[in-house]
């Protein structure tokens, strides 16, 4: 019954999404732009949904996931990861705004800037560009400027910001009071939203378990439910409070300051989320088919196939990863420089470079998984049930599809989630080395890289660094904790060494 419900709701979401999409494409006065990574992201999402629908029908797949859902640390990580995911997805629907019709031409002209839904939602923050550096919550620039006074004389002072704190008449006196007021009211709003969500959740749970709402409330708050809803609610409360504070305050101030050219650092950090997620997920998506095919083929068929595949991955893995990436990206730069006609917009160009970076990272990282799968396939091949299948005359490919593949999937899954966090971290390092994402693209690596040059400045400009590090830290920490929960649930051999097993 519940499985049918889940499938039903997944289908419903799919249908609703596609109807909305069709509606949006045909009626909104914008031109949609589909970047390569967008396509892959949505394919990945569809695959995840498909897998979820499939897994919900099969008990042996549902059981480990239920274990993940029972893990308190795991569910907190999931809540935070989904917040990142939502922002990343909002940032993955791109369009171009129509330009005002000045030439009276029949054909509608579109702006050259490719925007995403996130850009559109954050328009005031995106367009609130200052002249240069300004500290978090500042009302004045961080650097002195010469200003002409009305009487003709010149004065060196810290000029007022054009957007940050512009609504204040006398920032020195009003600012802290205004920040406090805004914070308190957003905390209140956040609590209201959270309370509504809690009530909705508990009444839904009560209906599902056929219990009175008051009893369900007690169960949830005391943590007596199978899934630790009280922990989920706590994590959601933190997220909602932060979101409310950020939303209300960033309308009035630059909550993480501005960078060298006066762009809002908070907006840049939000934009960097998509880059991080793309690198963490698409890299694995790109390398997965090769790793699975080659690994299983080598382990199952042995002989010549094994020799060739082993040779290929030993060769690839013997080149130090950073150097291979550097060489490939250098070559890509040359190629892009000599073929400028291939890219319609700057966004498309940066996007293709991101995709290529994912592919190269995939090439350097598939060897580990391939080696693991080869070993596992070799072990499985000798198992009685596979020997039996061979004796019954089942074809090789059927054996691989029906017996070997399902039995190595847990290794694949564990390595996907384990790789994610290291890939996000690698992006920052690669951008520093100069072989990361396009310099025009928002990414934590690029933020750190440009802020690093200001370290020598006195007083120090610390906020871009801190913003990038904090957002990256939360994402990577959640991913690491989630990976632990998944590994503990799926790998019986490692179950003892995980976090949960300590207690």
């Amino acid at each position, binding site marked *: 019954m519940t499985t049918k419900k889940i499938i039903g709701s997944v289908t419903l979401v799919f249908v609703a999404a596609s109807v909305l999409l069709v509606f949006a494409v045909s009626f909104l006065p914008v031109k949609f732009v589909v970047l390569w990574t967008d396509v892959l992201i949505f394919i990945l999402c569809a695959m995840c949904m498909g897998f979820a629908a499939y897994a919900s029908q099969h008990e042996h797949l549902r059981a480990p996931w239920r274990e993940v859902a029972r893990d308190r640390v795991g569910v907190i990580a999931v809540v935070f990861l989904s917040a990142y995911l939502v922002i990343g997805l909002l940032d993955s629907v791109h369009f171009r705004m129509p330009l005002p019709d000045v030439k009276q031409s029949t054909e509608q002209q579109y702006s050259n800037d490719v925007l995403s839904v996130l850009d559109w939602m954050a328009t005031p923050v995106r367009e609130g560009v200052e002249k240069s550096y300004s500290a978090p919550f500042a009302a004045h620039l961080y650097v002195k400027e010469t200003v002409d006074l009305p009487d003709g004389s010149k004065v060196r002072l810290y000029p007022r910001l054009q957007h940050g704190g512009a609504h204040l008449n006398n920032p020195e006196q009003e600012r802290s009071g205004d920040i406090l007021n805004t914070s308190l009211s957003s905390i209140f709003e956040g609590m209201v939203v959270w309370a509504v969500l809690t009530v909705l959740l508990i009444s839904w749970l009560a209906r599902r378990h056929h219990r009175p709402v008051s009893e369900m409330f007690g169960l949830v708050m005391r943590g007596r439910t199978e899934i630790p809803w009280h922990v989920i609610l706590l994590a959601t409360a933190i997220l909602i409070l932060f979101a409310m504070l950020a939303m209300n305050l960033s309308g009035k101030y630059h909550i993480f300051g501005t960078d060298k050219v006066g762009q809002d650092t908070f907006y840049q950090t939000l934009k960097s989320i998509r880059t991080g997620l793309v690198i963490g997920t698409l890299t694995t998506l790109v390398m997965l088919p090769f790793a699975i095919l080659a690994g299983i083929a080598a382990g199952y068929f042995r002989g010549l196939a094994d020799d060739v595949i082993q040779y290929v991955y030993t*060769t690839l893995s013997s*080149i*130090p990863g950073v150097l291979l990436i550097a*060489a490939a990206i250098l070559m890509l730069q040359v190629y892009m420089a000599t073929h400028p006609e291939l890219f319609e917009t700057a966004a498309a160009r940066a996007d293709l470079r991101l995709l290529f970076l994912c592919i190269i990272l995939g090439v350097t990282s598939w060897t580990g998984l391939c080696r693991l799968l080869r070993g596992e396939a070799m072990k499985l091949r000798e198992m009685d049930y596979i020997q039996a299948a061979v004796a019954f005359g089942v074809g090789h490919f059927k054996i691989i599809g029906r017996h070997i593949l399902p039995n190595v999937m847990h290794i694949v899954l564990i390595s996907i989630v384990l790789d994610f966090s290291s890939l996000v971290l690698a992006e920052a*390092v690669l951008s520093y080395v100069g072989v990361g994402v396009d310099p025009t693209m928002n990414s934590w690596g690029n933020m750190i890289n440009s802020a690093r040059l200001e370290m020598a400045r006195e007083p120090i400009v610390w906020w871009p660094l801190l913003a990038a590090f904090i957002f990256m830290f939360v994402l990577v*920490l959640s991913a690491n904790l989630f990976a632990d929960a998944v590994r503990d649930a799926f790998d019986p051999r490692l179950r003892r060494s995980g*976090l949960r097993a300590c207690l």
Partner: protein
Amino acid sequence: MINYIIRRFFYAIPILIGVNLLTFALFFVVNTPDDMARMNLGMKRVTPEAMEKWKHERGYDKPLVFNGGAAGSEKFTDTIFYDKSVKLFVFEFGQSDSGRDITYDIKQRMWPSLVVALPILLIGLLTNITFALLVAFFRATYIDFWGVVLCVTLMSISSLFYIIGGQYLVGKLWHLVPISGYEEGFDALKFVVLPVMVGVASGIGSGIRWYRTIFLEEMGKDYVRTARAKGLSESLVLFRHVLKNAMIPILTGVVVILPLLFMGNLVLESFFGIPGLGSYTIDAINMQDFAIVRSMVFLGSILYILGLLLTDISYTLVDPRVKLA
């Protein structure tokens, strides 16, 4: 033993040939030397003469693999492939695109890299194993739990944060050591302390966790139970039996990276201004010096394969069960 080493050595040759062909394809087939010349001379308004001159100075004006115009064996030797790729096998790296002798640069720069990388490895190994033994000793208690939580937290911090934080705190705020730079001889110490500290700190989270897993796996084995059953104290079990047996997986991880220490750490060296091979590579990437990057790719692979060879040999030294066949 000698036989075994020789045979392993011959196994390495096809892999090196593969690496060589791959780098050749990457650097000369994907993009022609013309593209590189245009890129290096500035994209716009490049005269064909300037391009020819650039290519000629660097030896990129020959045919790729087969020179029909030459005589005899020069048909094959007077080509880019022979000049730039085959000669790597005898460590003739040739000249960089800016005209410097790469072999000389590498010889000069590998020592500073080693001065930084070796202490990081040794001190890191010592700290990681010590702490890992500690948490393994207190396994399944709150010390273990919070130890692992701390490790995961440390793992989740970007290595750039350790570098920038270390430079800011130790170098700029406390003025204990210079922020960056390098000197020869014993003066190097004050420049090396901070990078080494940072290098150790950034590896500590994943390191402790990894060794803890190894120790715990080892502690689940039968011989440990026997040792406990015959009345040995827990610390004796840990130090005399578990540590000794856990050395085998630890050794695999360490020996394989020993030769790569010469290559240095790209990010660390460039942040701290250490004139090692890591910063050499970064500079080459930023100046788009293809000759240096190509040489470093090949050198890195050779050192890695050497590491694999050393691992196999060291196995036989520590594990008497492994027989060389």
